[in-house]
């Protein structure tokens, strides 16, 4: 049994989640990142993707952007777009998917295109 650490997901209007966990996988800007207990202090930000929190039961959240800080065995995820996958129904996903598809071609910079393509990919993945 690996040791636990605290994970917090906070959005501007509420604290979405605060619990002990073994492992969290976040879609960091430069790729998936698994975080375990006693990780070194870290600051990064997110691209669209899925946050997976592994404790006794697994929780998955869809995010579009966010900032992540890890210090003192406390993982802090600040995002305004976190959605619990359990509460996300098919029609909502398809709606987002259509928007993302329409958006992809409108991006001007490489960075925006990169983000938009990940958004599309993630949505496709969860709509299956």
């Amino acid at each position, binding site marked *: 049994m690996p040791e636990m650490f605290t994970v917090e997901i906070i959005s501007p209007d509420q604290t979405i989640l605060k619990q002990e966990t073994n492992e969290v996988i976040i879609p960091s800007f430069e790729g998936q990142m698994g975080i375990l207990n006693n990780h070194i202090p870290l600051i990064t930000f997110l691209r669209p993707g899925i946050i997976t929190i592994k404790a006794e039961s697994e929780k998955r959240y869809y995010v579009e952007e966010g900032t992540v800080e890890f210090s003192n065995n406390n993982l*802090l995820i*600040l995002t305004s777009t976190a959605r619990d996958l359990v509460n996300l129904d098919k029609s909502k996903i398809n709606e987002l998917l259509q928007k993302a598809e329409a958006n992809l071609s409108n991006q001007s910079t490489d960075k925006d295109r990169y983000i938009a393509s990940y958004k599309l990919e993630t949505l496709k993945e969860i709509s299956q």
Partner: protein
Amino acid sequence: MPSLDDLKKRIKSVKSTQKITKAMKMVAAAKLRKAQESAEKGRPYSQKMQNIILNLTKSINDPQNAPKLLIGTGEDKKYLCVVLTADRGLCGGFNSNICKLAKTNFKKILSEGKELNIITVGSKGHDQIKREYSKYIIKKFSFKDKKNISFNDADVVGKEIISLFNQNKFDKCIIFYNNFKNVITQIPQAQQIIPAETKNLKESNDENFSYEFEPEEDEILEDLLPKNISTQVFKALLENAASEQGSRMTAMDNATRNAGDLVDKLTIDYNRSRQASITKELIEIISGAESL
């Protein structure tokens, strides 16, 4: 001496005013609970965001090249003041308190010969400030038609501030709002958001982390700092919303009580003059009968 009819009319009108203030108090109380809740729920986000920024500030190795949003332009000549007020009146000293604080600051800035620009959020503040400082107001926002303030609203204001900063329109940015302490006490506050205030830095934590950054430090700051501005504005808006309702509730409670006192006083007056007129009539009848 007002006639009986006049008194009756006044009592009636005071009573209906009392009904209105009572209803407003109830509405404010209901709204307050919601606003207070969202203000309290919103606090962790802005606090943690501020903390990350502060930690980042500490670990910056090269202060010369740090982003300007964080350390400022190094000058102290042009000020941008963002005054956040309510869109509705009848909430006691809520709006005037913010404006009073803001005006004191404006005077100080102007007396030091510095340049002043003002952005107002909320129409009540705009009305009060434009009387004296209308030529400094460069932009006004109003969320009158919004029921609940969302992060996107704050983002609009935040983006405006950042774009002005990028155009070199100001060196320092201060926001004015009411901090919600409890229902009775709201404290008007001035918070400097650009450059980020590092005063509270010492108390947060003394440990010096060396963070791992992914991607690069400046890229993160570039992403985080504009977000922080919007977050701080959002926090201020939430605090303001809760303060407004709290302030209105107290004000309307007082008004209801005052109206009650007034009704009591008027009723006594009314009864007295009714009694007086009855006595007068009696005297007239008796003296008429005696003279027969």
